[in-house]
């Protein structure tokens, strides 16, 4: 049994050429097997790479399978078939205990809202994954992150005393504190105004540029996607397009093109 969070760290082979996250022939089918349920194919044979130290945005219409992809990549959900490699470790065959350790040590996650535990202060929320692993935070690194989110004076506050944007920045800090292979963010700015969005996105951008992080973010907003190095377009459970060096306008144009194809 895996107690105290000290499960064996997942062994991995890392070279600078392996992508941070790699998925091959990933499929996720809902409603299969049971009775009269209509099958929903959320992911349809997706093969995709997320290179290290890059910021990737994923866009696509509602219901296209973006969240499902993120969940499968982050070890929150099991794909129906296909493989996921996080930093060279194949995750779909891992036990629950090992997956838990993987999420804790090597993956960061930012949800759209309700990311934080209400009983813990901002600081305690940030270091929660380290705490769960029984490790002490690297103070210098923690300082850099905290300066990055600009909330040093609010560290002792409970989430209920922070604004939505501040809460999301705390959530981002928590995702980064373990220096993970990759940070996944599912519409992290979906519930924020433009100023707060800019704060959060700016922070994610700098974490890639200054800390060498790998970030994968799902978003509906072209302006948000413009912060990324690369945009993947998703529809009906597949990757249908890609754009590098995106600007808001180019993303918008591309989205219009895709809609036309759809129609």
């Amino acid at each position, binding site marked *: *049994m*895996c*107690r*105290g*969070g000290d*499960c064996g760290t997942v062994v991995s082979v890392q070279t600078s050429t392996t992508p941070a996250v790699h998925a091959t022939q990933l499929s996720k089918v809902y409603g299969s097997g049971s009775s009269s349920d209509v099958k929903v194919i959320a992911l349809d044979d997706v093969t995709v790479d997320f290179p290290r130290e890059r910021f990737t945005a994923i866009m696509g219409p509602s219901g296209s399978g973006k969240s499902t992809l993120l*969940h499968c990549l982050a070890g*929150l*959900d099991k794909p129906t078939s296909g493989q996921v490699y996080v930093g060279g470790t194949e995750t779909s065959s891992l036990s*629950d*205990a090992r997956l*838990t*350790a993987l*999420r*804790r*040590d090597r993956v960061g*996650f930012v*949800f759209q*809202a*309700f*990311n*934080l*535990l*209400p*009983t*813990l202060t901002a600081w305690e929320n940030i270091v*929660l*994954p380290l*705490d*769960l*692993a*029984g490790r002490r935070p690297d103070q210098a690194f923690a300082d850099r992150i905290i300066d990055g989110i600009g909330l040093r004076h609010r560290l002792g506050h409970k989430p*209920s005393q922070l604004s939505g944007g501040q809460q999301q920045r705390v959530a981002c800090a*928590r995702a980064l504190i373990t220096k993970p292979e990759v940070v996944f963010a599912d519409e992290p700015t979906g519930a924020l105004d433009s100023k707060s969005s800019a704060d959060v996105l700016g922070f994610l951008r700098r974490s890639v540029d200054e800390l060498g992080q790998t970030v994968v973010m799902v978003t509906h907003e072209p302006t948000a996607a413009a912060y990324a190095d690369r945009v993947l377009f998703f529809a009906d459970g597949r990757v249908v397009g890609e754009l590098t060096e995106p600007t808001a306008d180019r993303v918008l144009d591309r989205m219009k093109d895709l809609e036309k194809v759809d129609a």
Partner: protein
Amino acid sequence: MLRAMLRDLRAHKGRIAMTLIAITLGVAFVVTTWVISDSAAETLRGRDIRGDVAVTVRTVGGGPELTPAERDRLARIPGVASASGVAFGYAGLVGQDGKLTSARPTLAGTGWDSSDRFALVAGRTPAPGEVALHERQAREAGRETGDRTQILLSDGRSVDAVVAGLFTYRPFAETPPSVAFGDPGVLGDRFTRVELVARPGADIDAIAAAARDLVDPALRTVATGADLAAQAQARADDSAQSSRESLLGFAAVALLAGMFVIANTFSMLVTQRTRQLALLRAIGATRRQVRNAVLVEAGVLGWIASTLGVALGIGLGLLGLATTGSDDTNITLSVSPTSILVGYATGVPVTMIAAYASARRAAGVAPVAALRTDGSFAPRSLVARSILGGVAVAAGVVAIVSTLRNDLSTTERIVAMGGGIAVWLGVLFLAPVLANAVLRPVGRVMSRRGGPATRLGVRNSVRDSRRTAATTSALMVGLALVCAFATLGSSITSMLSSSIQATVPAEATVVESPVDNVALGTDVLDKARSVPGVTNASADRYMFVKVTHNGSTSQTTMSAIEPGGVIRPEVVAGTGDVRRGAVVGENQAAMIGARLGDEVTLVLDPTTSVTTTIVGLHKGMEGRPLFYVDLAVMPAKLKATTVTSVYATGPDAAAVRAGIEAAFLDRPDVVVTDRDGVIKEATEGFQLLLSLMYALFGAAIIIAAFGVVNTLALSVMERTREIGVLRAVGASRPLIRRAIRVESVVICAYGGLLGILVGIGFGAVMNHAMMGQSLWEFSVPYEIIGAALIGMVVVGVLAALWPARRASRTDILAAIGTT
């Protein structure tokens, strides 16, 4: 509107199951009590009525007995078919161990007759030279029909008789005798009463009137059989009622504990539905509609749970009667409509009262709450509640402090008790604030020391101090009661022992009767004195008497002792020299308002009283003689016949003991023991009573445990999303389980410790107010407290099992999906 709420109720079966269990258990306890006392009353009713006697003539207490001549005169009254004399006399049934059985032998013998007094259950009518035994005493003595048994008679004679049969007995007012002699002459030719049987059609009132004319009304009482039967019935009902009342006290405690659980559950159910309620308000439901909907919901739950509780209670009651009632043949099982009604009349209102606060809160939900994302109430202020609690505690403390003296009058004792109860209630009100004040710092320390599971668990336990307090209240009440009575019990036990230790020398050999508070034979003291090696032998003459002081009379106890004997009261004021007057227990003196130098009259029996002056106060207590007087002031006729214990000392204690044991070797009416034996005997019955109480209060603790499970399970549901996030960022399942377990143990430990502290305090106050001892002179029941400490941790761990499992199985994606 209502339909929506009820459908909602149905949709949350899991959430309400625990509430149902809490109400069901409480109701079941009440109904069980009712069924048992009903059946007890019904059993007595069915058995006790005698229809065969028209009129009885009996002696007035202590007066001369009836003679055969009187009987014959009564038999000649017109309309009387027959008159029989009924005698009761000393008969000590000796058991297989060679000692008397526990029944008081004084009036335990009677002559067999063919009246309805006896109902044979085994064997046959005893012939002269044989006896029949009451079946209960026969069982205790280990005798069956056909056995030979020794029976002691008054003045030390004894007979060996064959047991011809076993009987059950229908008394008018007397304690059922143990032995019925086939030869009525054994008890002499004087009667305690004469029973007249009427000819068919005779006028019973006329017979009674004629009998009254024949006898001296100062010495004889005439009553008709119908009157006596009615009185016997009234006594049976009374005793059923009083046992019902004491049992209902425990049921009330269980219900109170249940109420906390129910109130807490409703409050949580309402909190969880804030959004739904707000939506209802937003689309136009009035406050009243929302409140009534919650109340109706409570009513429905109360109704269902009461039905279950009534069924369970009847089952438990009948089961209890069937198993424990086995020493009485054919118990009448009685389930009266009242017992069922009582079940509903407690279950439904208790649930609705408990739900009322939640209903009001639900009605107060602002419609905008539907739009808020966190969907919870703003925390309610604890100020009013804390002020109320603070005032109650302060008032209680003042009441206790102002009655700190030892010599309290009855009113002051009531004030002290009231103070104790006020503090207790105050602490209940203060529980949330105390939870904040105590658990936060403790939590901080534990967080620093412990791992993440501890930290999370402790944090969650102080998250909503109102809820924590409500959850623990039931546990607190249950444990406080247990600890209060344990403290009282252990204090009384230790005071009894120290009181006995102070009055009786350790090396004294003690001679007593095997039967509690029964006088020894008149020869025992002299026989002990004549044992070689005994230099001082003296006696206690423990009697239940009345005391009159300043015109008011009350019950008390006394003992006449030899001045300079072995027994020395533990004097705290005045003198211990009984030659100068009475030495009285200091709290007894305070109770009757008497001081040193006051004159009191002790009424020994209707014809004997002793007037004396109080010359000393001793440290005695209930259970030991309260008035010590000089043997010399006792009337001669009582001097020899009232000896209850003989204490013998000599230069060689072992030789004294051996000598006395040898002297009384074959005496069934005497046991030889020492001071420790006396202490053991004095405290034993008390311990038994206490264990029974613990068992009954246990019901409250079981309900409290359900309350903890309930709260935890609901909290876990409330925190689904949070647990999902925790799992997503890497908390393992065991860690989640541990966190919930820590939370549960912290909650239980808080309630438990509070309960133990309040219990010890209240026990000390009870000891002070009821036993008249100093407030500080209580003794701590370490064993019970140890058991309570272990118990509360066990309850904490067990209560967490199911909620922790649930929490650790949370589906991460589903949890994150919920808002």
